[in-house]
């Protein structure tokens, strides 16, 4: 079977966050990693490949040319092919423009299953995966915490996570699943796999390679969402330290504070 895994290069939360003057992220200036939910999605695909011989895993990403690094990382983990969608006219895309673009690229590929991460740690929207499915007219199961494949019947059985329960859903392939980082513990790259990954050919597509995509729906111009303002998180202060003389005084202090904040 053929699986496409959509991955995204995101700023490492351990590094600083930097913005462009228009409020979008300055990705070129930040340390970058593979988005954790996407990495879990890739691992899920690789486990399917481990247990279903003949499975081919293609990783696809949209971003700056340096996003090739996450494709190489994915290939070093065991993916077979990498596709980079990069073009200046695609920059500044919101979730609508991004999903339109990715769907336009996927229309060029054969697939039985598409896996995306639930959400990226930079945007936290959780919209792109389901939107891709909508563009392609596919069933979507989001928040997957377990994925089982029945290759003979071309179905997937997925546990969809909720706060206090999970639903078991079955879907006919082709379909799209969004993965949670809790889904699994992603494997490391293999040593030799890294060197092979740098020999692997990465397919690079631009605007012209997207299929059935309208110019009005791509890039910053095609993005209905506009960022009004972006700022760094303001660090909380050190807090207040008090040293009451008795437990009674401590209780009275806490009750006073909670009342002041309208908690009680």
């Amino acid at each position, binding site marked *: 079977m053929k699986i496409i895994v959509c991955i995204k290069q995101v700023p490492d939360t351990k590094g600083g966050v930097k913005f462009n003057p228009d409020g979008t992220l300055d990705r070129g200036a930040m340390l970058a990693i593979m988005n954790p939910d996407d990495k879990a999605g890739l691992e899920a695909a690789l486990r399917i490949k481990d247990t279903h011989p003949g499975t081919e895993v293609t990783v696809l990403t949209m971003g700056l040319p340096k996003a090739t690094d996450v494709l190489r990382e994915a290939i070093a983990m065991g993916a077979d092919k990498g596709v980079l969608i990069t073009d200046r006219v695609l920059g500044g895309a919101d979730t609508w423009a991004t999903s339109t673009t990715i769907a336009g690229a996927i229309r060029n590929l054969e697939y039985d299953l598409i896996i995306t991460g639930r959400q990226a740690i930079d945007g936290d929207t959780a919209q792109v995966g389901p939107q891709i499915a909508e563009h392609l007219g596919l069933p979507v199961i989001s928040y997957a915490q377990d994925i089982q494949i029945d290759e003979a019947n071309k179905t997937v059985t997925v546990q969809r996570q909720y706060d206090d329960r999970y639903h078991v859903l079955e879907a006919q392939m082709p379909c799209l699943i969004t993965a949670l980082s809790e889904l699994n513990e992603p494997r490391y790259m*293999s*040593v030799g796999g890294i060197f092979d990954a740098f020999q692997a050919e990465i397919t690079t597509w631009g605007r012209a390679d997207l299929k059935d995509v309208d110019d009005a729906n791509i890039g910053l111009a095609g993005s209905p969402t506009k960022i009004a303002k972006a700022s760094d998180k303001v660090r909380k202060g050190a807090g207040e330290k008090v040293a009451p003389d008795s437990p009674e005084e401590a209780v009275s202090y806490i009750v006073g504070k909670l009342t002041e904040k309208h908690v009680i």
Partner: protein
Amino acid sequence: MDFTLSKEHEMARQLFKDFAENEVKPLAQEVDETETFPRGTVEKMAKYGFLGIPVPKEFGGQGCDPLTYVMCVEELSKVCGTTGVIVSAHTSLCVDPIMTYGTPEQKAKYLPDLASGKKLGAFGLTEPGAGTDAQGQQTKAVLDGDEWVLNGSKCFITNGKEADVYIVIAVTGKIEKRGKMMKEISAFIVEKGTPGFTFGTKENKMGIRGSSTYELIFTDCRIPKDALLGQKGKGFNIAMHTLDGGRIGIAAQALGLAEGALETTINYVKERKQFGRAIGAFQNTQFQLADMATKVEAAKLLVYKAAMKKAEYQANPKTSYSVEAAMAKLAAAEIAMEVTTKCVQLHGGYGYIREYDVERMMRDAKITEIYEGTSEVQRMVISANLLK
């Protein structure tokens, strides 16, 4: 001359670093305290190819260069000297001589399992009365029909009881050299489980306490005739050449220990307060850190240069990396000892307490000045080349 690592090497370093932080560091203290061989870690390392880094792909290895191997041992040793030496002894002292001197049959028989980590390797040269001094060897191998019969013992063997495949150096006769009768030395491949091959005492060590250091005992141990590695009588050359490579591995271990101690200490001096200030604000601390960082960088350049010289040798066997390996090990080991000792000092009383990593790193560092040729032996190798 370019000091920039390739993107491949950068990514490989990130792999080793992530693995070391996530899988090795959490166990380092326990491995040391309880003298436990980290079998689970070895299995995980095997899965990702850490045990077959230089082995060609045709034998199931990773087909990578010596620099990649060095970075692996370095990153592992930053957090755990024990784990670093397990990989180093396996790769440099067992896998490498089979790759270099093995017959096609020996390579096909041993390399795939060693490269995949299904089997672990070790190397037996040292005896109670002989280390680098080959003429002091007592272990004998006598050809009896189609078998060699081994008798004798080897001591201080890294990966001792945990290994499956052993390179063993033994005396196979006498030859005349420059009018003197000398011992003829040969190398053999011996498998665990061979009748007559047993283990003696486990050594209770100062450092690298999780590594399995044992005595190997051979009592009428019969191995096939084709277990001879390389030519009969070339065992000393094989051992010395193997140690040239091994020294790069130990130099990488020493480098990692020094870097690990320095990183730990940099974090510590930012947090530890005395006289109302972080101790990192005192000029004494700053100057010591500067000196240590400079020495560590110098060691790193020597170790990487030795690895690159080894790569050059692999492409052109007429070249040699013996002196570079000796210099790298001499410098890295002595710098590791100096840096870890100073790091303990900067930690003050806490540095002397088992819970603090620098205490373990200082004990681990000491062995790098001793095994696979002491610092004095490295000086002999270097000066012999200067005065030849």
